[in-house]
């Protein structure tokens, strides 16, 4: 954004080589020349802003491994990591291949479930924001 404004200003200033700029041209150019500084201001810390820590989010980290779809997800199954949170210790439940039936709001009977219909429950301690956290989470 800033670069585009600067280029615009340069073209306005030097585009008409050999012609004397009018007073109107100079005023327009000056106004545009201020834009880069104006847009930069919100990025500066406000003097009224309270000091804060910057240790990162307290949200859990995903497990590093990727599945075949490029997701941080592990299929439930023998010898597979059951949780979805990394740097974790605690209770875990993992289950999949749910099947059952149900009814929609038009009275249609619709089955649910597939081998990938899975749930995971994680309750305990995990590491985030540079310290230990407590939480309970569910993978749906």
């Amino acid at each position: 954004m800033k670069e585009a404004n600067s280029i615009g200003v340069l073209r306005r200033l030097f585009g008409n080589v050999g012609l004397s700029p009018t007073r109107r041209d100079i005023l327009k150019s000056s106004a545009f020349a201020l834009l880069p500084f104006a847009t930069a201001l919100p990025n500066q810390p406000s003097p009224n802003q309270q000091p804060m820590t910057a240790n990162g989010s307290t949200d859990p980290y995903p497990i590093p491994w990727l599945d075949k779809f490029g997701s941080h997800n592990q299929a439930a199954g023998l010898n597979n990591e059951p949780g979805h949170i990394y740097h974790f210790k605690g209770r875990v439940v993992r289950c999949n291949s749910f099947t059952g039936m149900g009814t929609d709001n038009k009275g249609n009977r619709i089955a649910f479930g597939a081998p990938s219909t899975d749930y995971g429950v994680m309750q305990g301690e995990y590491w985030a924001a540079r310290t230990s956290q407590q939480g309970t989470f569910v993978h749906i």
Partner: protein
Amino acid sequence: MVPANEIHDFHPPIAPSGLFWVVPVPEGALTFSEDGSSFTLEMRNVTVIDQPRFPALDSIGTPARMSFKLVGKSTGEPVKYEDASKHFRFTGNRASCKLEAQVEVPSIGFSWKSDPLSTSKSDFAIMGEEINGRYYDS
């Protein structure tokens, strides 16, 4: 493993961190029996998306709500999974789990409710303790 006749797929969005389809559980929604051998997780109006074409990268997610009750019970059969190269260890038992759920997609006027809990089944379930990452070696 997405069935060809799948018409809805409800799950939370993937978090910006990459955390996959995981949401916090409200206080009191998860209860374990005293001996830890059974549990119930019941959540209401969880914000999810309906994304039938997942895992296609351009699959659209339609805002939806989901309520569910998941119950499980240990069978007592011990299980241990460990992979030192991936820094995880799970120690627990096989289990059986059942699920009942209802979903609503307001924008398309669709809702669906499963039959009672007792009529569902899962082919695979385990419950126990896991340690991974920085806690694995400690």
